[in-house]
């Protein structure tokens, strides 16, 4: 078993699936010879050839649009958008076509594609490189939105996303790409989509998060444990469709919930989870549900970035307030 960081796990998942399914191909800007600007596709073109690892012209709209045409004709394209801030030109194609091709043809055609992009801040990148567009996609019917939080999860969830018969937006937390390594068995075993994973058991409060902010959530849970507050930590992993059952089951036990995410607060996905708790778990709650999210501000450039991203301190503060309220 190899020790892999998250970007290497993405690379291994792509290689495994390309090796085992000739319908899988990779396309995007600089994904071929250069192996991707983050090296997610490194070595794939040498191994599988330029016809299956396509350096496309520099146009995100057509990367998404041609992937749809390929998918409709039986291929399984994995399209890379180089940075999350450049994903917006794809939205017409993802919303108007990828997510609805199956429905509008009554299942005659479908769109088994994956749109991968590095997402979120924390690496002091230039402007337009630190956005977290998850909530734009979670509002789109017919799409899956998946966010891995570790190398193991990136490997298993990406395999599942490629094998899924419907379109998946796969948002890879940029700052986790090389943050840590994990043992990842390159055995082609996919993880299930549409389910939350329990990362840590506890009975005092449920901390719900996904992607990069699980780092801060786990660190906060460690600090809280030292104070005697035992937090349960859930990794949502697939934002849409949402496994609300697992969240409700946990909150029913703990009676408290703090939701943490890196995207802006208003209309963010945390609101959907909070609404689900209000609708189905209100009588289990001992305190109001709190959200720790990015402020509703434009993603700042590097100097203010650390104050923008949800911090361990903000999470601990929210948990303490929640504990005090009950």
């Amino acid at each position, binding site marked *: 078993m190899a020790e892999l960081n998250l970007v290497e796990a993405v690379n291994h998942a792509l290689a495994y699936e390309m090796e085992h399914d000739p319908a899988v*191909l990779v396309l995007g800007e600089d994904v071929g010879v250069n192996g991707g600007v983050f090296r997610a596709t490194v070595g794939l073109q040498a191994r599988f050839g330029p*016809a*299956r690892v*396509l350096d*496309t*012209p520099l*146009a995100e*709209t*057509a990367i*998404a*649009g*041609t*992937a*749809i*045409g*390929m*998918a*409709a*004709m*039986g*291929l399984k*394209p994995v399209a890379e958008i180089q940075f999350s801030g450049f994903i917006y030109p794809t939205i*017409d*194609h993802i919303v*108007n*076509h990828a997510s609805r*091709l*199956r*429905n*509008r*043809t*009554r*299942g*005659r*055609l*479908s769109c088994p594609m994956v749109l991968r992009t590095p997402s979120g801040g924390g690496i002091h990148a230039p402007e337009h490189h630190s956005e977290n567009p998850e909530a734009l996609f979670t509002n789109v*019917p*017919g799409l899956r939105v998946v966010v891995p939080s570790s190398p193991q999860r990136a490997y298993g969830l990406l395999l599942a996303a490629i094998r899924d*018969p*419907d379109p998946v937006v796969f948002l890879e937390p940029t700052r986790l790409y090389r943050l840590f390594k994990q043992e990842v068995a390159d055995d082609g075993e996919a993880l299930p989509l*549409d389910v939350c994973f329990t990362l840590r058991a506890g009975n005092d409060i449920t901390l719900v998060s996904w992607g990069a902010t699980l780092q801060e959530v786990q660190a906060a849970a460690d600090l809280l444990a030292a104070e005697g507050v035992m937090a349960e930590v859930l990794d949502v992993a697939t934002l*849409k*469709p*949402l*496994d*609300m*059952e697992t969240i409700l089951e946990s909150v029913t036990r703990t009676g408290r919930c703090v939701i943490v995410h890196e995207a802006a607060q208003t209309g963010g996905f945390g609101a959907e989870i909070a609404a689900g708790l209000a609708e189905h778990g209100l009588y289990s709650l001992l305190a109001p549900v709190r959200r720790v999210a990015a402020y509703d501000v434009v993603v700042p450039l590097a100097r203010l970035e650390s104050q923008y991203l949800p911090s361990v301190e903000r999470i601990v503060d929210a948990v303490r307030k929640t504990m005090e309220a009950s």
Partner: protein
Amino acid sequence: MTSVSQFQVDFTRFLDPQGEALAPLPDFAQDPAVLLPLYRAMHLTRIFDSKAIALQRTGKLGTFASALGQEAVGVGVASAMAGEDVLVPSYRDHGAQFLRGVKMEEVLLYWGGDESGSNYAGPRSDFPVCVPIATQVCHAAGAAYAFKLREEARVAVCFLGDGATSKGDFYEGLNFAAAWQAPMVVIINNNQWAISVPRERQTAARTLAQKAIAAGIEGVQVDGNDIVAVRHAAQQALDKARDGGGPAVIEAISYRLGDHTTADDATRYRDAEAVEKQWAFEPILRLRNYLLRLEAWDAKREEQLVKECTEAVNAAVEAYLATPPPPVTAMFDQLFATLPPAMQAQLDTALRFENKQGGGHG
């Protein structure tokens, strides 16, 4: 200074409006056995359009986009396609779709508000009509790439209008297909109008065909009212693409004799007299004039053909009107391959309220 690039755009017309040959005709154009089915298909499209508009006016069909005056573009191109090719249509291309095997009642079902109208029983791989302008060019480029990757002798044939050539998707799709040398043929149905905006305000480019040249693709113009020219150009482009020669763009010059859709009123923005003059150039009349010259046609056969097409359209209308509305579950059952458990509660709600909702929703 040296010139590093020059281009020209050729225009082809074989038949003048009186049906007289202006140039030596391609072989197929001398064979009534080839031409008569095209003539029928154009008639069928026009009669279908007329009936569809009547249905809309009487509340039996939703908004509909007629192909009036542009029948030669769809029919001419589709008649040159092979069955295994794939049509990537816009919303005005039912003339092409009928030749591909799409049923008239399917087209009516779609415009009548039922997604099952895009579940074509005939051409299973053809794309459904594309409403967001020009996006289909990118889909066609991707489809063409799939054919090339799998070494299949198939071509993706994409239709769009003159207004669509102003969109980035048009150029991006062309550029990708050319960079990949993928088998894609793009047909610009230049009917002179993008709703109310005339061709001359759409672009300063002298032709729309020349937009292909920036992507490294040959662009040609044909008289879109001359089905011989349309079919001939399409056949050449298809053959070349199928043989690995890469994509092609054909600008077919036609005229939108009707409104943009049934929701439009073209008298608000264009002169009725100018439209009236265009009727002299329309494609059915032109082919009829030529067939009369060939002595392959007469008034009796015309009458018989109109009768037969009208009956076929009426039968399709009956089948459409007899189709019950889909159950509420149809909104859910093809959203994903398998409905996620997270959506079960919403489906249950929809079932609980099925056909129990009051007014306000049409």
